[in-house]
C-alpha cells in the first residue's frame, strides 16, 4: 500500500514537472513577451524597461529555474496586469472555484447515483429510458449554452436565482447545476452499468438466499460494489470541473480561478495563466491519486497489492 502511494506520488511529481516545463516553453514560444506586455503603443525604451523589470533579458534556463524555484515555494511571480503577487490573486479566487466545484460534484453525485441505481433496478422501464435520455442529452449540451439557458429561465424569467455574482450562496446554484450536469451522464451510466453487472453476481444470489431484505441486498451488497468505480470517476470529474470552471465562471461572472484565468489570457498576463494551469494540473494529479487510494480502500481485493 505505502509502496504504491509512494510510486504514484513520484509519478505525480514528475508529471507536474513536465507540465511546468510545458507551460514555460509555451510562454517562450509565444514570441517577445516584453512587446506583448507593453502593448502596441509602447516605445522601444519602455519595452526594454519591461524586459529588464521582468527578467526577460536573462538566459531562458535561468528564467526557468527562477520560475520553478519560485513555484515550489508557491511564489509564481507578479501579475503583469493586476500589479500584485500571482499567489495572492489565486488565494483570493480559489475558494469560489472550490465551492463551485464541490457543489457541482455534490449535485452530479446526488443525481447520478440514485438515478443510475433506479435505472438499473427498473431496467427497460420509463424511468430507465428517462435516465438514459438525460444522459444522452446531457453529453450533447454545450455547457456555456446550458448556463446561458439557465440564466434566461431561472434568473430572468422566474427570478429564483441571481444571474451573476458570488456574493451569496444563491449565486452558486445555477453555475453548479450547469457544471454538474456535464459530469452527470458519465457517472450515471457507470452507476447503471455497474449495478446491472453486480446484480447478476453470484454473491447477490447468496445474499438473497440468506433471506436478507431487499434494501439490504441492494444497498449493502450491490451498491457498495457498484459504486467503487463511480467514486474514482467522481474524483477525476472534479479535476475536469476545475478546468471547466473557466467557461462557467465566465458565463456567470463568478470571481473564481477560471474567470481570473480568462481575464489573464485575454490580457496576455502570462505569469497568472502559467500559475493557474499548473495549479489545476496539480489538483487533477492529486485527485487521481486520491481516486486510486479510495479505490484501494473500497475494494479489499486491491488493498493487498
Amino acid at each position, binding site marked *: 500500500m505505502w509502496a504504491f502511494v509512494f510510486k504514484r506520488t513520484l509519478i505525480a511529481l514528475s508529471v507536474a514537472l513536465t507540465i511546468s516545463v510545458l507551460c514555460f516553453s509555451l510562454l517562450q514560444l509565444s514570441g517577445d513577451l516584453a512587446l506583448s506586455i507593453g502593448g502596441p503603443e509602447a516605445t522601444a525604451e519602455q519595452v526594454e524597461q519591461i524586459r529588464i523589470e521582468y527578467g526577460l533579458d536573462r538566459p531562458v534556463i535561468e528564467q526557468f529555474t527562477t520560475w520553478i524555484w519560485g513555484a515550489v515555494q508557491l511564489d509564481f511571480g507578479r501579475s503583469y496586469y493586476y500589479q500584485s503577487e500571482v499567489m495572492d490573486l489565486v488565494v483570493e479566487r480559489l475558494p469560489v472555484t472550490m465551492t463551485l466545484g464541490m457543489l457541482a460534484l455534490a449535485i452530479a453525485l446526488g443525481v447520478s447515483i440514485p438515478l443510475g441505481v433506479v435505472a438499473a433496478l427498473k431496467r427497460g422501464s420509463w424511468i430507465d429510458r428517462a435516465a438514459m435520455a438525460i444522459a444522452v442529452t446531457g453529453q450533447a449540451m454545450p455547457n456555456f449554452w446550458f448556463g446561458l439557458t439557465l440564466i434566461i429561465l431561472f434568473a430572468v424569467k422566474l427570478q429564483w436565482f441571481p444571474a451573476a455574482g458570488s456574493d451569496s450562496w444563491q449565486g452558486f446554484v445555477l453555475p453548479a447545476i450547469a457544471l454538474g450536469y456535464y459530469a452527470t451522464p458519465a457517472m450515471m451510466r457507470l452507476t447503471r452499468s455497474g449495478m*446491472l453487472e453486480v446484480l447478476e453476481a453470484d454473491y447477490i444470489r447468496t445474499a438473497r438466499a440468506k433471506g436478507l431484505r431487499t434494501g439490504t441486498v441492494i444497498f449493502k451488497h450491490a451498491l457498495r460494489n457498484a459504486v467503487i468505480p463511480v467514486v474514482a470517476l467522481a474524483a477525476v470529474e472534479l479535476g475536469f470541473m476545475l478546468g471547466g470552471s473557466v467557461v462557467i465562471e465566465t458565463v456567470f461572472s463568478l470571481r473564481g480561478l477560471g474567470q481570473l484565468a480568462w481575464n489573464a489570457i485575454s490580457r496576455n498576463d502570462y505569469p497568472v495563466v502559467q500559475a493557474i494551469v499548473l495549479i489545476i494540473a496539480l489538483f487533477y494529479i492529486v485527485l487521481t491519486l486520491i481516486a486510486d487510494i479510495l479505490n484501494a480502500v473500497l475494494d479489499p481485493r486491491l488493498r493487498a497489492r
Partner: protein
Amino acid sequence: MAQLLSSPVAATHHPANTWLSRLVHSTFKNRSLAIGLLIITSLGIVALLAPWLAPHDPYLQNTANRMVPPIWHETGSWTHPLGTDRLGRDYLSRLIYGTRISLFIGLVVALISGLIGTTLGVLAGYFGGRVDAVVSYLLTTRLAMPVVLVALAMASLMGGSMLTVTLLLGLLLWDRFAVVARSATQQLRDAEYVQAAQALGCPLPYILLREVLPNIAGALIVVATLEVANAILLEATLSFLGMGVQPPSPSWGLMIAEGKAYMFFQPWVITIPGSALFVLVLAINLLGDGLRDLSAPGGRNE
C-alpha cells in the same frame, strides 16, 4: 471513459466486410444508429450545398434590418426565416454556413488526434515494457492538462483562427484514442494470428497495419465519433470565449457569444445556434452509441 476501456474490444475480431454488412443490416434495427446517421447525413448535405441552400449571403450586413425576429414571432417574415443578427445578417444563412465549420473542425480534429493517439496506443500495447511506460506517462501528463484552459491560452498566443483551433484540439484530444488502442492491442498481442505473423517473420509495419489495426478499428471508430462530438463542443466553447474562430465567420459558438448581449430580450439569438449545436452533437453521440451496441454483440446496454 471507463466504459470505453472495457466494452468495444470484444467486437474487433471480425473481418471488416462482415462488420460493414452488419452495420447495414442493424442500422434498420438499431434506432439510435438510424436517427444519428439520418441527422448527420442531412447536416453533411447542408454543409456541402451551403452556397445553394442559404437564402442570403451570410456575411452581408444590413443595418436597416437588425435583430429581425424569426418566423414564429408575430413580426417575423419569410425573407429571414430565422431572423437577423445585430448586424442585420441572415441568421439561417449563417447557421447553414456554420455547419461547415463545425463538421470540418470535428472531422479534422478526430483525424489528427486519431492518428496521434492510435500510433501511441498501438505501440504501447504491442511492445509493452518501456514503450508502454513512456506512453502511459505522456497520457498521464496530457490528462492532467486542463484542455479548455490550455487551448484558450495557446489560441490567444497564436491568434485564434479555424486553423489554430483545429491544430490545437487535434494535438490535445488524442488521449481516449491512445487508451482504447492500447488496451485493444494488448489483448490482440497474444492472438494466434498475430503470433503466426510474428513466427512467419512478417515485418513489423506489416503486422501492425495488416493484422492489428483492422482488428481494433471497430473500437477506434466508436472513439472517433465521440471525439468528433467533443471537438465540435470545444470549438464552440473556444469561439464563444473569443479565442476560437474569429468574426465574421459564422461559427455557432461565436453566434452565441455575439447574441449574448441580446439574450434577455430576444432569447432566440442564442437558442437557435445552441439548438443547432445540440442537435448535431446529439446525432453524433447517438451514432456513437449505436456503433458501440453493434460492436458489442448481444451485449449489455452500455
